[in-house]
């Protein structure tokens, strides 16, 4: 690609990734979540792949990150077994990390709440972003 595309894509890279990160982090408060934010981040990586046609990024790096995201997701669910049951939300209402007790009624949304749901969103976001980038990269390399 020519220089204009390269520079514009580099400029747009950080806003897109930050927006994707915002959607992932606010998954438990606003519409959106891990999957949607992951897709936004993957679109930034797709932009990079199209603009810089060199094979800088290796396929197996993405599959490794994807595996880490999946393993993180299911291991959080497994930690719940030691507390109560599988997928038990052991962090909520502890008034510690991600555990702010929310009282009944309207509020403007606390980021420090939701227990394990934000962590799950993060894991799904990592997984979806790397999996979609993997798919795009393997389509391009064909």
């Amino acid at each position, binding site marked *: 690609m020519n220089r204009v595309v390269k520079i514009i894509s580099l400029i747009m890279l950080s806003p897109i990734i930050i927006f994707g990160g915002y959607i992932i982090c606010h998954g438990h408060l606003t519409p959106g979540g891990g999957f949607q934010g992951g897709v936004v981040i993957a679109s930034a990586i797709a932009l990079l792949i199209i603009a810089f046609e060199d094979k800088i990024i290796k396929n197996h790096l993405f599959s490794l990150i994807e595996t880490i995201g*999946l393993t993180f997701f299911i291991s959080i669910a497994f930690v719940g*077994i030691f507390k109560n049951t599988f997928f038990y939300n052991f962090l909520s209402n502890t008034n510690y990390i991600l555990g702010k007790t929310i009282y009944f009624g309207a509020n403007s949304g606390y980021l420090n709440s939701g227990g394990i749901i934000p962590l799950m969103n993060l894991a799904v976001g990592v997984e979806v972003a790397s999996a979609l980038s993997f798919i795009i990269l393997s389509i391009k390399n064909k």
Partner: protein
Amino acid sequence: MRNFIILVITIPLLTAFLLPLLKIFSKKLSNFCIGLNLILINIISFFLYKSILENGNIIYSVGASAPSITAPSGFPIRIILTANALSSFLAMFFTIIASLTFFYSLNTLKEYANLDKFYILYLLLLVGILGFLFVGDFFTLFVFYEISSISTAGLIVFLRNKENFKSTFHYLSIFSIGSLFLLLGIGLLYSQYGFLNMAIISQKIQLSFLDKIALSFIGSALLLKVGVFPFYFWKIEAYKVSPISAIILSILSSLSAIYVMFKIVFYIFGLNIPFIIALTLLSALSILFGNLLALAQKNLKKIIAYLAISELGYIILGISSGFLMQNSKFEFNAIKGGLFHIINDALDIGTLSLIIGVILYIAKIKNSLSYNSVSLQQNEIRGLAHKYPLLSISFLLVILALSGLPPLNGFASKIIIYESIFHLNPALTIIGVLGSILTLAVLIKIFALIFLGAPNRDYQPAPKIAMVVIFIFLSFMILIGLFPMQFTNYFINPSVKALISKPGYKNNIHLQQDNQEQNHSIIHLTLHSKQRYFNYI
């Protein structure tokens, strides 16, 4: 103890996700982990079965300490898993077969590349099978249906020939329609009752016309998964090209789909008689067609597929005719025969496909594509009985078992089915016996063409672990065949009682209804707070 039911499903899932990480360290480590995982879930499912026999059924809700503790509005919207004697026994049996098949495929598949991906899909398909057995609400049913369909597609494409891609496309296009049918049926139920939980729907259902449409959608999607007479085409395409261990797991997924189908028809739709009559007819037709079409085939893997279809016909014939003879003394026996035949079908067809896998291995026929050019009539493989006497003896035993001859396990279950369905309609018994005779003809033909005669070329030595696995399967078959009374008393009778009696989560529904009344105040509160919220804006 309570968490065993979820551990059986999730330990293979965790292992499947960990495999790409383990592969970085060493290939042997990842194989060791899969073996350890399979042995672990064998032990867990055994203790699950034992605890269910002692303490009764288990209802497990994911994410809450009790199923009655539900969402703030009081609806049972959590993922709910249920286990009774039948489903936990099937889980125990299926995990044993899946782990033995894994050790078999370690021995015979080792020359292929990308084996780690094969085992990831293998474990995911096992997750789908076990999830089908324990599923307690419709949404989870849909999720496990998708998991097992997609991972089966991955297993079919594994050998990566041109034919594999063709078959996988065929399979995926059929199953995308099938899963949409399932979703449509579930959506019809959900739009009427507002619940996805099977226990709640079974209480609220009014059996209206729309419910019958929903039953036909869900039933046809599940029959597609089972693969009986009009829905069997994907099975031939898929089995033709996939490795032997994938074929065995696919048979197990069909068997677990039979269990889910009867659970839905019996528990939720309260024995819809026209559907069960249709099932009886379809199963009789699949016995006839499966065997007749198997006679005409030359490809060994296609023969496995057709014989598997006819054996599935026997199972469904037994169970559905048992439901048709409700409140008579033959009901128990017919269902007992059908459920007993689930075990025997998995063992017999499993052993047949294991032996055929060994035959393809020792004849150096590596992939399925080259095998399609080898037909039985060209006598490519001949005279194996001279060099492999143990293999030929085990093949003879499989012939006896599959065609239902006395000293082996196939006889024990088929005789129960024949005797009990005779009281429904003698024609069904005639079809069943005719099917057995045709099975005998198919297998005798294979035996004569492959094992007899003079050997025509050099063959590899037989893989040792694979032979040990075949002998373990055979010893199960002989033990069940010699002591069928003891086996049915210990394992099958509790399962039949579990299928006939309504599931134990009835008490639990009352709990949930009490909870609903309590939570009514909470719903009120939420409405109130919404009002306040609007005022606030």
